C-alpha cells in the first residue's frame, strides 16, 4: 500500500509544534487566572481566544500541512483550544459570582427603617365584641334581630309586663320624646324581642338582639347614657331554666374559655319569672383569689365571680301580650351590657374611653376581638 504524502514534516511548521501549542495554552490559562475582574478576563479572552490570538493563528496554519499531518495537528490544536475555552468559562463563572456577591453587598439596605406610611384603621371593640357574640349564637342556630332605637312604649314597656307605674318609666331612667305620646328612646333591646314574637306566626323563636340603648344617666367612669346591649330570647315548647343555664354556660365558654361556667342567683325583673342574676366564674383567677389576700384579683375584686346581667324564664304575661299560648310554649331570655363586658374582658378602666372615639383607644383592638 502506498504511504501518504510524507513530503512535509508537521514538526517543521514552527507554530504547530507540540511544545509551542502547549505553551500557548498555558499562557492563556495563566492570563485567565491572572484576570481579577470580568473586564480583565474579557481582555485575556480577546488576547487568547480572539481571531487574532496565537492559537487561532496556529489553527489557520493547519491548512498548510500535508494531509497526513493535518489530522494530528488539528487534534492537538483543538484540544488546546478546548482547554482554553473551558478554563475561560470556569474563570468567568468565578468572577461573575464574585461580582454578584459584591453588588448584593452594595445594594444592602436598612430593613429596620420604619414604614408607617399606610394609615392604620381599626374597628370599634363594641362592634367587634357584639359580632363575636352574634357568631356564637348564629352558630347555635339563632338569628340576629334588630329594631328601631326610637321605640313605642308599648313595645319597650307594656308588652314586657312593665305597667304604666313601673319605676323605670320615669324621666330619671328613660328619655321621652318631646310632644309625643308613648314614644321613647328604647331602654333595652327587649322591644326587638317583642317584635320577633309578633313577627313569628308561631314559635319556635330563637333570636339574639344586639343594639344601642339609652338611659338617662350622666357619662362618668362607669356609666353612659348610650350603651350597647345584647339580649337573647328563646321561645319553644318545653324550654326550661336548665336550658337557660346551659345556653349561658355555652356562651361564657365560647367567649372566655374552657371550663368557665355561670351561676344564677334569684332576682326580680318584670319580664321574666322566675328571674335571675347571672354571674360567671372569673376567667382571670378562676376563683382562686377568694380568701387569698396574697393573690388578689382586680377583675373580680377577689369575689371569684363576675356579674354579667339579668335573665330568666319569659314571663307568661309577655307571651300572652304577643298572642302566644303560655300553656303550650315557654321561653327564656337574658340580657347584658357590652360595655361592661368589654371593660372586664379587656381591662378597660374608664367608660369614657369607650365612648369618646379616641383612635388611640380603638386601634389596639384591630379588626376582630
Amino acid at each position, binding site marked *: 500500500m502506498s504511504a501518504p504524502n510524507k513530503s512535509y514534516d508537521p514538526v517543521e511548521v514552527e507554530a504547530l509544534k507540540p511544545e509551542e501549542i502547549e505553551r500557548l495554552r498555558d499562557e492563556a490559562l495563566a492570563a485567565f487566572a491572572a484576570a481579577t475582574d470580568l473586564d480583565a478576563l474579557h481582555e485575556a479572552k480577546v488576547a487568547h481566544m480572539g481571531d487574532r490570538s496565537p492559537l487561532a493563528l496556529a489553527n489557520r496554519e493547519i491548512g498548510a500541512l500535508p494531509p497526513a499531518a493535518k489530522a494530528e495537528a488539528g487534534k492537538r490544536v483543538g484540544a488546546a483550544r478546548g482547554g482554553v475555552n473551558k478554563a475561560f468559562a470556569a474563570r468567568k463563572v468565578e468572577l461573575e459570582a464574585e461580582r454578584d456577591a459584591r453588588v448584593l453587598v452594595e445594594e444592602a439596605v436598612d430593613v429596620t427603617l420604619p414604614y408607617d*406610611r399606610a394609615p392604620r384603621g381599626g374597628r370599634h371593640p363594641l362592634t367587634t365584641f357584639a359580632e363575636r357574640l352574634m357568631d356564637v349564637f348564629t352558630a347555635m342556630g339563632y338569628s340576629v334581630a334588630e329594631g328601631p332605637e326610637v321605640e313605642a312604649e308599648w313595645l319597650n314597656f307594656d308588652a314586657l309586663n312593665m305597667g304604666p307605674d313601673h319605676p323605670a318609666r320615669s324621666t330619671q331612667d328613660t328619655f321621652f320624646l318631646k310632644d309625643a305620646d308613648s314614644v321613647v328612646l328604647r331602654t333595652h333591646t327587649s322591644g326587638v324581642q317583642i317584635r320577633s314574637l309578633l313577627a313569628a306566626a308561631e314559635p*319556635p323563636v330563637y333570636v339574639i338582639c344586639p343594639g344601642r340603648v339609652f338611659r338617662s344617666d350622666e357619662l362618668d367612669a362607669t356609666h353612659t347614657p348610650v350603651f350597647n346591649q345584647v339580649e337573647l330570647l328563646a321561645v319553644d315548647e318545653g324550654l326550661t331554666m336548665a336550658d337557660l343555664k346551659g345556653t349561658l354556660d355555652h356562651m361564657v365558654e365560647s367567649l372566655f374559655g374552657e371550663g368557665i361556667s355561670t351561676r344564677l342567683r334569684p332576682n326580680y325583673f318584670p319580664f321574666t319569672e322566675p328571674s335571675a342574676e347571672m354571674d360567671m366564674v372569673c376567667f382571670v383567677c378562676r376563683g382562686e383569689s377568694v380568701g387569698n389576700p396574697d393573690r388578689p384579683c382586680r377583675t373580680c375584686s377577689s369575689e371569684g365571680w363576675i356579674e354579667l346581667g339579668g335573665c330568666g324564664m319569659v314571663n307568661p304575661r309577655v307571651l300572652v301580650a304577643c298572642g302566644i299560648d303560655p300553656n303550650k310554649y315557654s321561653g327564656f331570655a337574658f340580657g347584658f351590657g357590652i360595655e361592661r363586658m368589654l371593660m372586664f374582658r379587656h381591662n378597660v378602666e374608664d367608660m369614657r374611653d369607650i365612648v369618646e372615639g379616641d383612635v388611640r383607644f380603638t386601634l389596639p383592638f384591630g379588626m376582630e376581638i
Partner: protein
Amino acid sequence: MRVPLSWLREYVDLPAGETGRDIQAKLIRAGLEVEGVEQLGADLKGPLVVGHVLAIEELTEFKKPIRYCQVDVGDANGTGEPQNIVCGARNFAVGDKVVVVLPGAVLPGPFPIAARQTYGKTSEGMICSARELGMGDDHDGIIVLPPEYEPGTDAIELLELVDEVLDIAVTADRGYCLSLRGVARETAIAFDLPLRDPALIDVPPANSYGPLVKVEDQAGCDRFVARSVVGVDPAAKSPIWMQRRIQKAGMRPISLAVDITNYVMLEMGQPLHAYDRHRIDGAITVRRANAGEKLRTLDGVERTLDAEDLLICDNAGPIGIAGVMGGAGTEIADPVVDPETGEVTGTSEIVIEAAHFAPVSIARSARRHKLPSEAAKRFERGVDPEATKAAAQRAVDLLVLVAGGTAEAGVTDIVAPHPVHSISIAADLPDRVAGQEYGRETVVRRLQEVGCTVVGSDVLVVTPPTWRPDLTDPNDLCEEVIRLEGYENLPSTLPDVPAGRGLTEAQRLRRRIGVALASSGQVEVQNYPFIGEAVLDALGIEAGDPRRETVKIANPISHEEPSLRTTLLPGLLGALHRNVGRGTTDVALFELGRVFRVDGTAETLYHAPRLPVDRRPTGDEIAQLDAALPRQPYRVGAVFAGHRDPQGWWGKPQAWTWADAVEAARTVADAAGVSLTVRQDQHTPWHPGRCAALYVGEQLVGHAGELHPRVVKSLNLPERTCAMELDLDLLTAGGAVKAEGPKISTFPVATQDVALIVDDAVKAADVEAALRAGAGSLLESLRLFDVYRGESVGEGRKSLAYALRFRAADRTLTADEASAARESAVAEAATRVGATLRG
C-alpha cells in the same frame, strides 16, 4: 335594708358560730341581694366605760374653749380615782353620764388611745362622741347617757358597739324583706329553723270607741287601724337599745315617738304615723285631694296637692299625704323645757295610725312630690295588710313601756272587704319550668314554708300569705320553689335549636363595610346621637333643610343637645376635633349608625296607641305603633383630616383629600356590590367646588368631598377636612349586582395611549363615558393616568391622558383593529365633549 345580726337573732335561733358572711351566703342563694356585711366595732378594744362627770374646769387661754374634766369611771382605771380628761366638746355638764375611753383602748380607725399632754394638762383618755365610736356620722357631740348607768359599766356592751350588719338591696317584688320580720323569715327557711314572728302578739279586737276614722276612698285605703295612748311623758327619751338598732339599720334616732314608729316599721315592715291628738281637729278622714289643696309636710315644704294624691285629713284639712309623709301641723311636738321650773311640756296624747294603702297611689304621690320616704318605699313594694293591728299594738306597747303612757281601750280597725286570691298550678309546673324533678311533696313543702296555704294533689290551689302580694301567677310560685331548692342546683342543658340561616344580608354588609373602611385606614367610632341647634348652624344647614327637622327629647342629658341626629357628621366631626385636640392630627374616622328623620313621616308620628297586654295586638295596631316612629335609616359616614401618607424617608407627605372621601364612598359601594356614579354638586356643608353627589342609578345616596372652609372654621377643624356620608338603606335598596363569572381571554392585550385636550369645565367622568362608548366592545379597560394643565394645551384647557387596553375574546387583535377602536373612541370624545387629540 340594713339588718343587724344581733337584732335578727331575736327572731331566729341561729347557731352561735354562724357569721354574717355565712348568713350572707345563704340569703344570696335564696335570692336576697346581700351586698355586704358591715363589721361594726371590729377594731374596737376597751376599756370603754360609763363615766360620771364630777367637775369641769374651763380653760380659756386657748383659741377655742377647752374643758379639763374630772370623771368618775368607777374601778375601770384600777385606782377608783377620778380620771383627768381634756375635752373640746361642750354639750355636757357636771353630773352627766358620759362614755369614756381609757388609755390602752383602741377606737375604730383604728385609733389607739394613750395618756397624752395637751393644752398644758395630761389627758388620761377621752370623752367620746357617737362618731368616734363608729355609731353614726350624724353628730359630733359627746354622748350623754341616761343617768341610771353606774360609772365603770362596760360601754361596748351597753352601746352594742360590736355587731355585724347585713346590707340587703331589696328587689321590687320583695317588699316584705324591708323588715326584720321578712328577712328573719327568709333566714329561718334558709337555715331550716323556726321563726318567732314579731307580728304574732296579742291584739285586742276592734271596737267602736277607738279614734274616729272615716275612710272615704276604700280603693286607696283598704285597712286603717288607729290606737291612742295618753299620759305620755314628753321628756322621755328613746332607750339606748332602740336608738342603736335604729342607727344600725341606717336611720337616725330623732325623738321617742318618731323612733318608736320607725322601730316598729323596721321590725314589722308596717309604716306607722304618730299624731299629737290635741292637734287633730275631729275625725281622721282618708280621701283624695282636691286639686290645688295645700299641705305643709314634716320637712317644712309647702306642697300643692294633686287630685290623685291620697290624703289623711281632719276637719281643718289635710294632715298628711297618705303613706308618704305627714303634715307639720299635727306632728308630735318637740318637748319644751321651762327654764325656771325645769318642767317639760310637749305631746302627751298620741294617736297611732297603721294603715294599708294602694301601692300605685303611693308610688305616684311619692314620685310626684319627689318624696321617696321610707314609708312610701315600703307601701310601693307591698306591705302586709294583716300586720297593721300588730304593728299598732307594738307601738302602743312601746309607748307604755318606755314613755310611761297608758293605752286607751279603743281599737279602730276599718277593713275594706277584699276577695281572697288563690292560684291554681299543676303540681309539676315547677319541675317543668326548672327542667328538674322536685316532686309534689317538695313543691308543697316549699310553698308552705314561704307562708302559702296549699290544697289539692295534681292541681294545687295555693293561697299566698298576706305579706306576699307579689305572688300572683303560677310562675311566681315556681320561682319560690326553685329558688329555695337552689338555683345553683339547676342542671345545665342545651335546647334543640332549629337550624339557622346565619346573618342577614344587611348584617353581613355592615360587617364588610366596617372591615373595608378599617382596612383602608379609617378608625371606627360610635358617637352619641345627641345634637343641638349650634352644630347645625355651624354646618350651615339652613331652615327648611330636612336635616333641621329633628326628633326632640323631652328630658335630654344636656339642654345644649336636645335632639337626635339627622346626619352622622356632627358626631364624627366632634370625634375628629377631640382627636386632633389630643394631638392625633392625622385622622380618619368612620361610623355606621342610625339617624332619625321626620321628613316623609305621617301625621301619626309620635302618637303611639296605648294597647292592652292581655292579647296580641292586631296587624293594624302594630302598624299604628310603627307609624308613630320617625324613620331611622342606617348610614355610614367618614371624616378625614391631616395626612394620609406622612412625610418620611420615602418622600413628601400626602394629605387626605376630597378624593379619599369619594373613594371611601366607593369602598362602601363595592362592599355593597353596587356601582356608584359621581356627579359634581353643591351641598351643605361641603365646599361648593369640591362636593360630589353620589348616585346609584338615578337614586341620590349621599355626598362626599371637602368641607366648606366656613364650616371648617366655625367648627374649629383642621383645614381641608373632608367628609363622606351615605344612606345605607338607599344604597342597598336596589339590591346588589350579582357577580357574573367573567370569561377570561388569553389572547394578547393591545395597549394604546391617548391624550385629549378638553375645556377645563369638562368632567373627567364625561370624557371617560365618551371614550368607553366610542371604543366599543374590544375595550377591556381604560385608565386616566395623567391630567395636565399648561401653556402647551392653552389657557382654560386641560389634557387628560388615558391608557386604553384592547383585547378580543377569540383572536389576537391586529394593530389596525386596535387603532381603529382607539380612533373611534377619540371621535366619540370629540363629538360629546369637544376633545381634540394632543399633538
